[in-house]
C-alpha cells in the first residue's frame, strides 16, 4: 500500500469528523426539519432559505464568516473564551461546527420531505388513539421515516467527507486535528507528490460511488416493499 502514516491519520480523522457531524446533525436537523414540515409560520420561507444557503454559496464564504465569528474578537470566540474553552479555529471542534453548518441542508431537506410526505393524518390518528405528540413522533413518525433518516445520514456523511474549502478556512492544515483527506490531497499536489494524491483521490471516488450506489439501491428496495411511505 502506498499510503503514508499521515494519509492514514487523515483518513481516520475524516471518518471521525463525518460520523460526529452526522450524529450531531441528526440531533439538530430532526427538530428543525420537523418544525419546517409542520409549521404554518410565515417565517418558514426565511428559515428554509437560510438552511439552503450552503448549497449555493462558495464554501470559502461560509468558512470566512465562521472564522470571523469564532476568532478571539468574534462573538462566538468571546463566548467560548469566557467559558474557558479557548477559541475554535484550527481545532477539531471548530471544523465539526463548520461542517454542521455546511452539511445542514443535506440532512434537513430529506427529513423535511419525508415528514411532509407522511402528512398529518397518521399524527391525527395517533392523537385520537391517546398518543401524546412526543409518543406519536417516536412510535409513528420515526418508523415511517426510516428511509428519510437513512437518506439524510448518508447524504450528510458523504457531503462531510467531501468538504474542503470550509475546513481549510476554519481548520487550516493541522495533522490529526484538521487535516482531512481533501486537505491532505491538496498538500500532496502542492508538494508535487502526485502518486500519493492519486491513491487518496481514488479512495475518495470509490467510497463516494459506493455510498451513492448504496443509497440508490436502498431507495429502490424501500419502494419495492411499499413501506416507509
Amino acid at each position, binding site marked *: 500500500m502506498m499510503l503514508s502514516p499521515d494519509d492514514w491519520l487523515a483518513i481516520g480523522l475524516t471518518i471521525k469528523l463525518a460520523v460526529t457531524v452526522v450524529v450531531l446533525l441528526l440531533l439538530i436537523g430532526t427538530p428543525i426539519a420537523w418544525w419546517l414540515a409542520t409549521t404554518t409560520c410565515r417565517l418558514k420561507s426565511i428559515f428554509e432559505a437560510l438552511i439552503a444557503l450552503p448549497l449555493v454559496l462558495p464554501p470559502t464564504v461560509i468558512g470566512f464568516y465562521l472564522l470571523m465569528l469564532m476568532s478571539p474578537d468574534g462573538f462566538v470566540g468571546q463566548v467560548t473564551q469566557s467559558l474557558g474553552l479557548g477559541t475554535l479555529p484550527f481545532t477539531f471542534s471548530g471544523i465539526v461546527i463548520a461542517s454542521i453548518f455546511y452539511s445542514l441542508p443535506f440532512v434537513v431537506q430529506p427529513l423535511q420531505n419525508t415528514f411532509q410526505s407522511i402528512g398529518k393524518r397518521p399524527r391525527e*390518528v395517533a392523537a*385520537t*388513539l391517546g398518543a401524546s405528540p412526543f409518543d406519536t413522533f417516536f412510535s409513528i413518525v420515526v418508523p415511517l421515516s426510516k428511509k428519510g433518516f437513512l437518506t439524510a445520514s448518508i447524504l450528510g456523511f458523504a457531503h462531510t467527507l467531501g468538504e474542503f474549502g470550509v475546513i481549510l478556512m476554519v481548520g487550516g492544515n493541522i495533522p490529526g486535528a484538521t487535516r482531512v483527506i481533501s486537505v491532505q490531497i491538496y498538500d500532496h499536489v502542492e508538494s508535487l507528490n502526485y502518486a500519493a494524491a492519486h491513491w487518496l483521490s481514488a479512495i475518495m471516488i470509490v467510497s463516494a460511488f459506493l455510498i451513492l450506489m448504496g443509497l440508490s439501491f436502498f431507495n429502490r428496495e424501500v419502494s419495492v416493499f411499499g*413501506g416507509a411511505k
Partner: protein
Amino acid sequence: MVGQSKIMFAAGLSLKVKKQFPKFLLDVSCEVASSGVTAVFGHSGCGKTTLLRCIAGLESFEGRLSFKRQVWKDNRETVATHSRAIGYVFQEPSLFSHLDVERNLVFAEKRSKRAAIIERKTIIDVLGISALLSKFPEELSGGEKQRVAIARALLSAPDLILMDEPLASLDYHAKKRFLRYVTSVKKLGVPIIYVSHSIDEVCEIADDIIYMDQGQLVSSGKLVDVLTEPAIAARLEEEAGSVISGEVTRLDDQWMLAGIQFGDNLLWIKSSDLTIKQNIRLRIKASDVSLSLTKTPDSSIVNQLEGVVDSLSKDFHPALSLVSIRVGSDRMLARVTKKSINDMSLKMGSSVWVNIKSAAVVS
C-alpha cells in the same frame, strides 16, 4: 330553541362551535344524546367534517364543548385530542402502514386511559377481523381496513366514537355489509357520532340527527321527528319520508309477505329474510304515500291505514304540498298536489286513509 330544559339534558355531548373560514362560517350549537348513533347530516361541503374535527380537537374553534361531565373546551382551556376519550374513524382508512393489524390494535390498547369496557375478543368478533390480525394494511380491502379502524378505535376504550363518512371509499355491497357492523357496534353501547351525506345511511343507523346546511344548524333531535318536520322534508326533496320502527309479527308464506306491527297498526311488506319477532326499521318515502278520504278496497295498494292530518306545508315545488299524518303514535309524510288538497278539502284534523305503495326495510 336551546332553553334551560335542553341544557339539563347535557348528559351527552354539548357543543357550541363557531369557526370563521374565508368564505364560510361554521356556527353550530346543539346537544347530542349520550347513547345510540347521532348522524351529522348535510350536503358535501356543509361543514360536517369540520364539526367532527372540532369535537375531536383536531381543529381549533371559538366556543365550548363538553362531554358528560368533562369540559373539553371552554374560554379558558382546551383539552388536547390525545387526552379526550374518543375514537375517530376517518373517511379514508388510516391504519398505520408500518404495523400489522394486531399491532395497530395493540397501539390503541396500550394507550387507552382505562380498562377496556368491551372485551378485545368481543370487538374482534363483532367486526369479523380475527382472520386479519397478522396481515399488513396494504393486504386488506377498503372495507376490511375500515373494520380494523373501528376495532382499533373501540380498543382505546372511548366514551364516544366519531365516524367521518367511513363508507366513502367502499363500493355498494361493502357499504351494506359495513353498515351492519356499525349497527353491531352500536349495540355494544358506545355512543357514535356519524357524519354522512347519504340520507339512506342515516335512516339505516341513526337514532338522532344533526342536520346542517352551509355551516349552520338546520335542525337536530330524534331522527323520526326531524325527518317529518315539514321544512326538513321539503329540503330533502325526493328523499323526503318517514322512518318507522316495528316488529315482525306475522309471516304469510302464501303471498310471501311479512306483517310489521308498529303501535296498533300492521304494515305488510315483502318477506325477504325476515323472521318473527325481528325488530326492523322501515323507510316510507313521502312520494310513495297517497291519501284518500275513504278506504279503497278495489285498489292494488295493500297497506291502507287510518290517520289524521297533522299539518299541511309547502314543498319544494309550487304544485306540491307535504302532508304530515298522524298514524297511531307514528307520523308519516305524503307528497300530494295542491289540487288534490283542494279537491279533497284536506285540512288539519281531517281523517284520511294513508295508502302506502312501498316501504323499504333499512335495518
